[in-house]
């Protein structure tokens, strides 16, 4: 359920620059991403130029600027996963879906997000699709996982 912008900023009366990140986080929680429209509204509310808001938001990995896909894939890039090859998993995933981390595929099915640590180091390298975990993924198995979701859709 989307909360209106007014309802979000009601929690931040007399907000100044330092409320920018919490407000953006709340917007992303509700809408799944930061839209152009919401940046304009935040800018008007906090009197910050949109270029600055976009600058702050792109600084952090947590913000995305496209709606998430039907299947949102979180790729863990924590230390344990990194040591066991999560970089090549991410690379393969990006190649296979033809999108970069932070983007959503054109058909709206898949989106990729890089997360620092999912907290499942024992399963490394791990990815998480809509809350479902896949342990010890490899360059090969990742394709299967994606294709399974794709097949589910085409049925």
């Amino acid at each position, binding site marked *: 359920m989307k909360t209106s912008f007014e309802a979000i900023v009601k929690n931040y009366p007399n907000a100044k620059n330092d409320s920018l990140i919490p407000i953006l986080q709340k917007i992303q929680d509700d809408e799944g991403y930061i839209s152009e429209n919401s*940046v304009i509204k935040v800018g008007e509310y906090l009197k910050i*130029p*949109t*270029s600055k808001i976009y*600058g702050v938001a*792109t*600084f*952090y990995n947590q913000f995305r600027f496209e709606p998430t896909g039907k299947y949102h894939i979180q790729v863990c890039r924590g230390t344990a996963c990194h040591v066991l090859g999560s970089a090549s998993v991410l690379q393969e995933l990006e190649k296979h879906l033809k999108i970069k981390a932070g983007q959503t595929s054109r058909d709206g099915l898949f989106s990729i997000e890089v997360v620092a640590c999912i907290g499942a180091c024992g399963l490394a390298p791990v990815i998480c699709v809509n809350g479902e975990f896949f342990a010890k993924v490899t360059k090969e198995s990742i394709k299967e996982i994606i294709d399974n979701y794709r097949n589910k859709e085409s049925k």
Partner: protein
Amino acid sequence: MSFQIEVNNRNLEANKGETILDVLNRNGIKVPTLCHMKDFFPSGSCRMCVVENLRTGKLITACSYPVEERMKIKTHSPKVIESRKTIVELLLSNHPDDCLFCVRTGNCDLQKLAKEHNITERRITGVKNNHNLDLSSSSIVRDPAKCILCGRCVQVCEQVMGVSAIDFLNRGSNSYIGTAFDKGLNVSSCVNCGQCILVCPTAALTEKNHFPGIQEALRNPEKTVVVQYAPAITVSLAEELGFKPGKDINGIINAALRLIGFNKVFDTSFTADLTIMEESAELIDRIQNNGVLPMITSCCPAWVKYAEEFVTDFIPNISSCKSPQQMMGAVIKSYFAEKSNIKPEDIYSVSIMPCTAKKFEAQREEMTHNGISDVDAVITTRELAQFIRLYGIDIHNIEPEIADSPLGVRSSAGKLFGATGGVMEAAVRTTYYKLTGEELINFRIPEARGLKKRKEIKLKIGDLEIGLAVVNGLANAKILLDEIKAGRKDIHFIEIMACPGGCIGGGGQPIEFDENNVIARMNSLYDIDDRATIKVSHKNPDIIELYNQFLGKPLGSKSHKLLHTKYCKRDVLL
């Protein structure tokens, strides 16, 4: 409170609150800087200015580190030199390295630093920057691949202009400078002032080049190629060509332009006079007929775009007069065309401006008649110097000439347009005469002169007391407009110029920004005014003739069609 600090084994006087760089500069010790700009808050991000603190053995940034008592510094110890050299090498490691094909070659801070630090081989190889060129703007070309992330453009855009069209995006080695949502500059809030180009150490920001169109027109025998140059040009070009900064080389420019091949050479100061005729008539009309006040000048296209984006409430306050460039464009393709029996479409109209926003202004939809643009190409002061070199004109060995009639005679009032406060002074001279029938004593308004960011003047014209204000720098303009919005009623006429100092400090001026040069240009304009025989626009014989033969009277129907325009709100990401 002052105390001594030890720099390179010498004792130097330092005041509490100063930075190390302040002390070094005062004592003639040079340390290289990149991100630092005078009068701006130091960011200390490039670390070029590091010096060694001998008490701790650490390197500290001179531009941002405040002096401390008993401080002991070395500015060129082996450690410092090695560190600076590495910084430059790292900056070069991901740079495109196309100096031979770069517009800023020979005039690039990065190139200069590489030379100063004796960098002759590539020690560090990095992944080259691979950002897209942004050609979308009609004034400014952005090449983030050449950007070294010093952030000077971001600071100027935010603090001087209050626009903030650009900022740092992303993080770490992926950082670059871009607009909100990474859109083209043309759809951003950028007002095209070009101050970012002036402060850019490399060619990451440059003006859009109009050379090919002009060269083609010059080659085409069927085209009559006419050129106009802004009031500020004649006092700004000097140092680019090796004269003393601020020297007025009006006659030499006329001669050089003819040698290049321009068929007619006109002086935009003439239409500055015309602007004054129309603008003072409009001011009097607004005062006498309860029009919208304060009236605000419209000569500066960066200010006009700013108003259309940021302060839309004030659009009705802006004078409907076109800027002198556009008035000249319109008059050339109507009056001059008619008089010389040339079809407007056979005229190629070039203008030389100290400004990048003029490139944008010339292609505004409102600035065309029957599908023909009034001004076809705009080049900056810098580009004019390049043009003169390109055509092999030996500027030091040509005889001065005068501009062409009928659009080449000017009063010195029109010439004053180049400096902040000049439009105000010129407009008041004519308004005073029109309202009282007498000339302003000495013709001068000393309070309107000088580079101050804001000047306010109370003036009695007959029994009418009017309030005048002059501001330069759009951030300063915003402060004044906020005061007016909050209820100030004592100001009737405002001159707003986007660039610090007005057009003499414009974004199209020679790159090496030095306030002393701007002052020299300003004084040169005042000198011209002191020496002039015609000091008021309404006494310019060619202006009188233009009205008698062609336009009728100020604010008349022909003026309205040719010399006035309208503005509208722009929907951009603010």
